[in-house]
């Protein structure tokens, strides 16, 4: 249990929190730091090299997301992209109760309205219609949920808001989805798309807001006028280059990775749901391939995570607050999961680096931990 008995095998099941930086991303970033250190806003050769690196990254991102290069705005991450979309689009804003706090708190901050979800975690289109008006300027619906893994059908959302909020831009937080879904298809209905590099093998501290033509947000950072004056501040050149490389690898390998990880996830979820009173929160057809979200009755989440960590399983439950304490999940509450079930929530998220051995280890450890906690 303690440090003197360090776990023999460690298995990282927290890919929704962050991912390991891909080795080739590290390579391109290191080269960038050493060779392409110029300020991209400058005019000389050194500056132009940095500018070119960013322009190439912008082209790569645009082709993978399915937008024009000029529609790509580089930011400091997913939260900034979400905030830029919402604060940068004045007027009535609408979002959904299960959104990441980067969206939810921003919409609450501007006095917006919150729509409900179905028990699967999908946006409730009737509820969405009910809170939209002709004055609504922003509707933000996440593409995939960070806790439950549920995927939203943005085409259906678009059809709904066409009727009830015809003057609104549709923004989607695709921070979780970008690792798994082809955004050319899945986000084709969105006018604005947020992404964060560290969720798909890139570095922390860099993200993207795609704002399609006619949906430019108002700048929230003013200064040197970078990013078409929509996001001032000297660009994080290496980060942007790393983001593009990570997205390129993700897109290239997506079909193979998704199939492989889904198989691992299925084996994990099948094994764990053999245990009495362990429930899969959302049916697999409705969620991301890397998501295994369980509600475990008669177990306290904090105790479970502590014991899992001691045995080398790194997972999470709901989102953490600034202090590091576990907070009750607003996502599960919105989905109507009873408190008794939600308090034993376990989020295992798999990713590119997840192996068969990781799943074996989880299947060996987790049932014992559950039994041990239930025995007390």
């Amino acid at each position, binding site marked *: *249990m303690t440090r003197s008995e360090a776990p023999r095998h460690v298995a990282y099941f927290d890919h929704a929190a962050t991912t390991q930086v891909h080795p080739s991303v590290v390579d391109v970033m290191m080269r960038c730091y050493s060779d392409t250190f110029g300020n991209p806003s400058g005019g000389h050769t050194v500056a132009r090299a940095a500018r070119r690196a960013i322009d190439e990254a912008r082209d790569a991102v645009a082709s993978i997301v399915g937008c024009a290069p000029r529609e790509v705005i580089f930011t400091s991450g997913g939260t900034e992209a979400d905030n830029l979309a919402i604060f940068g689009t004045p007027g009535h804003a609408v979002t959904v109760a299960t959104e990441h706090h980067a969206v939810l708190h921003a919409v609450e901050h501007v006095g917006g309205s919150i729509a409900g979800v179905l028990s699967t975690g999908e946006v409730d289109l009737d509820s969405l219609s009910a809170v939209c008006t002709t004055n609504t300027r922003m509707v933000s619906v996440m593409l995939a949920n960070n806790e439950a893994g549920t995927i939203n059908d943005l085409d259906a959302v678009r059809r709904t808001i066409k009727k009830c909020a015809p003057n609104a831009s549709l923004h989607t937080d695709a921070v979780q989805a970008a690792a798994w879904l082809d955004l050319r298809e899945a986000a084709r209905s969105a006018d604005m798309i947020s992404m964060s590099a560290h969720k798909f093998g890139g570095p922390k501290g860099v993200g993207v807001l795609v704002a399609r033509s006619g949906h430019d947000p108002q700048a929230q950072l003013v200064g040197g006028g970078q990013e078409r004056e929509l996001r001032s501040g000297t660009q994080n050149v290496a980060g942007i280059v790393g983001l593009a490389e990570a997205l390129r690898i993700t897109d290239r390998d997506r079909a193979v990775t998704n199939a492989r990880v889904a198989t691992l996830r299925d084996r994990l979820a099948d094994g764990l749901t053999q245990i009495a009173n362990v429930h899969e929160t959302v049916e697999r057809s409705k969620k991301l391939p890397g998501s295994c979200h369980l509600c475990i009755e008669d177990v306290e989440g*904090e105790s479970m995570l502590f014991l899992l960590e001691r045995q080398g399983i790194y997972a999470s439950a709901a989102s953490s607050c600034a*202090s*590091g*304490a576990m907070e009750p999940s607003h996502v599960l509450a919105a989905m109507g999961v009873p408190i008794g079930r939600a308090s034993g929530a376990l989020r295992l998220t798999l990713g590119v680096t997840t192996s068969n051995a990781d799943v074996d280890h989880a299947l060996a450890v987790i049932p014992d931990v559950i039994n041990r906690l239930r025995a*007390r």
Partner: protein
Amino acid sequence: MQVLMAMSGGVDSSVAAALLLDAGHEVVGVTMKLWGGESDTGCCSVSDVDDARRVAQQLGIDHFVFNFTEEFNEHVVAPYVDAHAKGLTPNPCIECNRHLKFDRLMERAEQLGFDAVATGHHAQIVTAADGTLAIGRGGDAAKDQSYVLNMLTPEQLTKIMLPVGGSQKPELRALAEARGLRTASKPDSQDVCFITSNAGRVTFLGSRIPLRQGRIVDTDGVELGTVPAIELVNVGMRKGLDIGGGPRRFALDVDMENQVVTVGTLDQLMTEKTVLRDLQLHHGSAHGDVLVQVSAHGTPEAATLDGDTLRWASPHRKVAPGQSCVLYDAGNTYVIGAAIAR
């Protein structure tokens, strides 16, 4: 032993963790997140968690945060508000120790496989005359916290460690300083941790229960003035009673139903006996000579315990209803039990 060290982010628990490591124990640090609201006085804020985590990092131990806000609200905040509403004196620190640190946390520690829970309290675990464990006075008399640990049973004490309980505070600060711990010169926490010094009790309680004006009368029924919130008046209180000049007068009785505070002189405040409820005796018998302390840092006074009645050796100020009366052995070295004043 495998010890779960409760780290508040203060200097005492920081040094306690270090001493446990020095003694060869396997230590895991935990900070309990107790209060979800605003706080700038006590042990519950994010910056305190940051301090605890940084100290744990410096000591090379794992650190976790357990969220017990729900239990804290249920067992500490709600009873605190309820006591004020009824005109009783609440004991939030005692209830927090009883229900959070030495119930919820101990239960969690046992579940997770720890042998003991340690805290940075200034109190010592000693052997009582009956041969079982008792909570003894802290080594630093000015910091002694045995009063707020009165509920600990001999059985619980077998699984509790108080590594700094015998130390002097300046000594602990020096130890923290020597190890470069960032908590070395952090001020002691005080007051009720969930009430901000800025907003205060009136704001806190006013947002939860109606605060009612009370009439102040003397023992002959003559009206002397008013108090803005009778819920904040305790028997024995002198400050905050707006009755102008004259001799010093104290609250002798608080009649919540009729919203009347009766005041009188110090002589009138004195009593021969105090009736108790909820007596919990860890050692000794319910009949005999004891020393009694009625506030966290009060002076122990001699009395005879006679079942549910304390007969004071010499006249004693009336104890506010709801106040914890902690009983010590005749030698004033350890807690033998505790009760609540009726």
